[in-house]
């Protein structure tokens, strides 16, 4: 209890993942967006409190980095919890726009970003 704050910060996130430090799958980047499946799939297991927080936050699509910041948890911990939720069918995942440099970047995408910045 009277451990230093830094120790507490390190230990607590690991307990949320059951001690796991690596994700079970590679679906998640910082800018992958996550959306809660609503209504939940039939016979879905009862989510843990931290999972409930995630499901609530993702009622609208949220990027993984934003989710981690809002939950005040490390991205690596959030990703492990998201893997569980994905496997349980509780969330859907939208990957980032692919960025391929070879042969070259997508001109339409760049033009869109350019126009959007121009409106700032």
């Amino acid at each position, binding site marked *: 209890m009277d451990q230093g704050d830094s120790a507490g910060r390190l230990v607590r996130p690991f307990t949320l993942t059951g001690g796991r430090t690596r994700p079970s799958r590679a679906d998640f980047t910082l800018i992958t967006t996550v959306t809660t499946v609503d209504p939940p799939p039939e016979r879905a297991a009862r989510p843990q409190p931290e999972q409930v927080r995630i499901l609530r936050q993702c009622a609208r699509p949220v990027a993984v980095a934003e989710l981690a910041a809002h939950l005040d948890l490390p991205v690596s911990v959030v990703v492990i919890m998201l893997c569980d939720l994905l496997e349980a069918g509780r969330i859907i995942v939208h990957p980032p726009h692919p960025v391929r440099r070879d042969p070259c970047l997508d001109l339409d995408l*760049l033009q869109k*970003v350019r126009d959007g910045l121009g409106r700032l």
Partner: protein
Amino acid sequence: MAGSDPAADAVTAPDTVKILIAGGFGVGKTTMVGSVSEIVPLRTEEPLTIAGVGVDDLDGVEGKRATTVALDFGRITIGRDLVLYLFGTPGQQRFWFMWNDLAIGALGAVVLVDVRRPQSSFAAVDFFERRGIPFVVAVNGFFGRHPYPPEEIRDALALPRDVQVLLCDARERESCRDVLIALVDQLIARVHPLLGAPAQGRPGSCGGA
């Protein structure tokens, strides 16, 4: 489109892209992210043990700061279906192992330079150059002063010719926006030399295929 409201489109997730704001320690990266972001910059902290470095490796760094590395980021909604994220990379060199992951899938990068000590951003320039990730250099004139012309900064950092050098003020929204636009123009010029900035379109572009 007038009055585009991302909240109205709750069902379809937008496409996301990212640009990195890099540079040496304390050059104004977080300030720049905050200047153009539509949200107050958010922050996540990663325990270094998870991020891939044993805490024991961090000799000389003591106390709470040694246990996590912070990453801050902002967001610009480009349209209903596209959102741009800006990630400020960790400034301290010891945390650069994180950049490898960050750099994957980035459109490009802004290397921010403190006009008073340009060499502090040299390693960032080197990082993106080695990986072939396009970048522009933005010189942050602390206190709005720019004593050196861009060409002098270019020489000081040994920049290739096709990398633009811009003078900016990290505290100013328009200034930071213009830096981002310059980066995207540079990217467009690589794809399509006729559409991009006139300074581009030499070897390395892939137009005409």
